[in-house]
Structures are given as C-alpha cells and as structure tokens.
C-alpha cells in the first residue's frame, strides 16, 4: 500500500495493517520533523510533490521491495502540506517472516524514497525566512515578503 496524505500519519493503523500471522517481524520507520539543523531552529516544514509521478515512484518502490525480499506486507505513506515539529513526514512499515528481510527492506525503501520520489520540503526557519531544500543545490533563504507572493 502506498499513500500521499495531507493528514497526520496514523502509525498504529499502519502497524496493524502489516501485522500478520504469517510475519514474525515488523519494522516501522518514521521520519519526524526535527527542531534543529545544526544550530538553526525550524519553525515548521511544508512538503509538496509532483502527485502523478510521486505515486508512480512509490508504487515502483513497493513492487521492487516485494521482489527483492520475502515481505508479508509493505506500506509507505508520505505526508504533504504543513508539518509542525515532531510530526512524522514519512512512514515505512514492512512485515516479513524474518527480521533481517524486514530491516533491509525498510532501510532500502526509505533510502531510495529519499533519492527518487519527487517530493520537496521547504524549511520555515524561526526567523520567518523560508528555503526550499534541494540537496546539492544552494538555494539560500527567501525573506517572508518575497515568499508570500507564491503558494
């Protein structure tokens, strides 16, 4: 199962979904919004995506993980929109008869998701400036006045 959602991620529901009498191991990964990046303080984060492609890539990741490991179930959910500190932006839940497969698949899924799925986050720092996060690309902060002109 894959999903993109504007609502808080319900990790209990995900755990319940992947738990099975056929599985001996469940691994859940949650990516949560950190308050500090080095010494800079985050006020909140906004996530946006390219919906058609993000769904397609997430579905490809699920399929590939199921081919590579013996998984009983697999669920990937990414949150979109405004996130406050401490909230989960992404959840990966996998179950398997054996824990090695569950750990490997969980780690591969989040590592690969972060490389290929077209989702972007924008930091709003404590001082109100905003900044799109693009690894390898220095974008620099935008002040609030400039920023308010775009969605």
């Amino acid at each position, binding site marked *: 199962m894959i999903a993109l959602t504007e609502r808080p991620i319900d990790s209990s529901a995900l755990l319940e979904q992947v738990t099975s009498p056929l599985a001996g191991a469940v691994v859940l990964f949650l990516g949560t919004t950190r308050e500090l990046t080095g010494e800079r303080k985050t006020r909140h984060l906004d996530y*946006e995506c*390219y919906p058609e492609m993000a769904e397609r890539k997430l579905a490809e990741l699920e399929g590939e993980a199921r081919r590579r490991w013996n998984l009983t179930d697999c669920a990937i959910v990414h949150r979109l929109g405004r996130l406050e500190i401490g909230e989960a932006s992404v959840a990966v839940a996998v179950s398997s008869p054996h824990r090695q497969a569950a750990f490997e698949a969980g780690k591969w899924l989040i590592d690969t998701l972060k*490389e290929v799925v077209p989702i972007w986050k924008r930091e709003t720092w404590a001082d109100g400036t905003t900044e799109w996060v*693009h690894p390898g690309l220095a974008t620099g902060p935008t002040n609030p006045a400039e920023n308010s002109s775009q969605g």
Partner: protein
Amino acid sequence: MNVRVQLFAVARQLAGRDAIELVLPEGATISQLRQSLAAQVPQLASVLPHVMFAVDSEYADDDRTISPGAAVACIPPVSGG
C-alpha cells in the same frame, strides 16, 4: 510543437509560476528543452544544470526525445522523507 513544463519547489519559486509553455521543434530532446528554458526564463538559468526532467512521470535523460503531448516536468533535487 507546444510543450508545457511543470515546475516545482525552487524552480516554481524562481520562475514565479507553476508551468512554462515552450515551442520546440518536433523531435526535440530534453537537452534542447533545457537550453530553450534557460533562454526564455533567465531566472532558472542557475538551477537548470542541477535539475532532472521527467517525461510522462519517468526520469528522462538529456538525449530523450519528447513526443507531442507528453507530460514534461522539471524535477529539482528531491528532499522528501
């Protein structure tokens, strides 16, 4: 042919719009689209060398030709997760 390029994140912010309409020769490649985009939207010139493009929701290399009517998107380095 007319090609509509969707923009996201910093590309959308720099261009000040969600999408750009370009006129490209039939059989144009992603490489030609990249050049045309830099010429028509100078604000994007600094980031274009660092972005990927997608055609019909798949990453596309620079030598990929664009079919008429294809969905084209500019994909800056992703930061989901």
